[in-house]
């Protein structure tokens, strides 16, 4: 199945927001959680300090459509990749992975190449 499996479904889009490393900067992800809720989505926040394994477990148990990963500590190349690898390992190919945080421009194409899209930074406008 392709990512975006929920497009024809009557239930709202379900998003897991997570910070899969040692990073306590959660203000941004809270703002995002509220914006997505206000856009009518179901939003799960994984809490502080989940491991990539926990992120993937939650995504599968909750059958989410999208995983939104946020890191501001520079560990994105390691931690985002670990999440993507674990999804692949568990045979999950129908969950979209979107990144955000402090991500240098040089890293963005590398993340895109492993399937992490978006990679939004500070100042990204929220839906009105």
């Amino acid at each position, binding site marked *: 199945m392709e990512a975006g499996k929920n497009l024809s*479904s*009557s239930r*709202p889009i379900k998003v897991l927001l997570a910070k899969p490393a040692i990073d306590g900067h959660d203000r941004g992800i809270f703002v995002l959680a509220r914006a997505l*809720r*206000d856009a009518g989505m*179901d*939003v799960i926040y994984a809490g502080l300090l989940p491991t990539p394994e926990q992120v993937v*477990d939650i995504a599968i148990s909750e059958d989410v459509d999208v995983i939104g990963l946020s890191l501001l500590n520079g560990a994105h190349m390691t931690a985002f990749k670990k999440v993507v690898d674990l999804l692949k390992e568990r045979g999950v190919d129908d969950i979209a992975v979107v990144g955000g945080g402090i991500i240098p421009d040089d890293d963005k194409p590398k993340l895109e190449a492993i399937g992490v899209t978006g990679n939004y930074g500070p100042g990204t406008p929220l839906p009105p």
Partner: protein
Amino acid sequence: MDTRSIIEGIASHDPRIIARAISIIEEDNERSYEIIRAIYGMTGHAHILGITGPPGVGKSTMIGILSRKLTEMGKKVSILAVDASSPFSGGTILGNRIRMQDTLSKYGIYMRSVSNRGMTGGLSRSTWNMVKILDAAGNDFIIIETVGAGQSDIDIVYLADTVIVTLAPGLGDSIQAIKSGMMEIGDIFVINKMDREDSFFALKDIMDNVYERNGWMPRVVGTNSLKGEGYGELIRAIEEHRVFTEKNDGKKKIRYREEVRLALSRIIDRSVWREFGRFLENGEIDGYYDEHVDPNTVAMEIFRENSAFAHSHSVEGRVES
């Protein structure tokens, strides 16, 4: 994924397929009913624990500890936790998981966050059918956490075998305790946060106000979730009530009737609204607004003038189509 492999996956307890099945159930459509029809024969084993109580008393934390203890006793446990959707956008922040994630990961307990989709009563419409999926998947216990509940959010009484009403010190005096609603539905009352000041007064207020209903005297238990105290007693109370419900199947019959009532009201709702919903759209009632007619009269007029139309299209016929 086709319906047959979903049903086989549930029967073989495959967690990923169970997760997908619950999503289909959430859509609450013809396909979800087909799955329930197919697995209904496999249900009836699980004991359903309903955890309810006001927001912030520690329901999620309690479920984390309770599910761990039950798992350590060799029981298979799954959890459904319901949170309220926004009445404005329909979106939901599902936050119960944070309080129990470490336990869930360590013990491999299945937990699913559920949005109430605007339904009052503390549950979502599809919670009943989600429970059936988890029951068919071989769980011994299914723990349901309601929305942080007020006095009248008592639907859990129709779904759970054992209702645990969770309270904390500082929620009010003995007058609060004798008010109707929540106090009438608990099979077990838990006063959480027993480390707090005045906790023993809260415990006593509840003890003084519980009374025997249908042959069961509700148990009152104090817990301290920070230290894990009181949970042995809580599990004993659950076990006693489980044995009690096995001998008295009255509650299961009431639940069955309630489920039929819910399903019926859903069918009636849908078919009736299909006929009458259009009167609220496209400026149909603007004339009444301009004439300043009171809303009750408008509703009655719409119903009276169109009920002949509704009768000629029989409700049963609509459901079949």
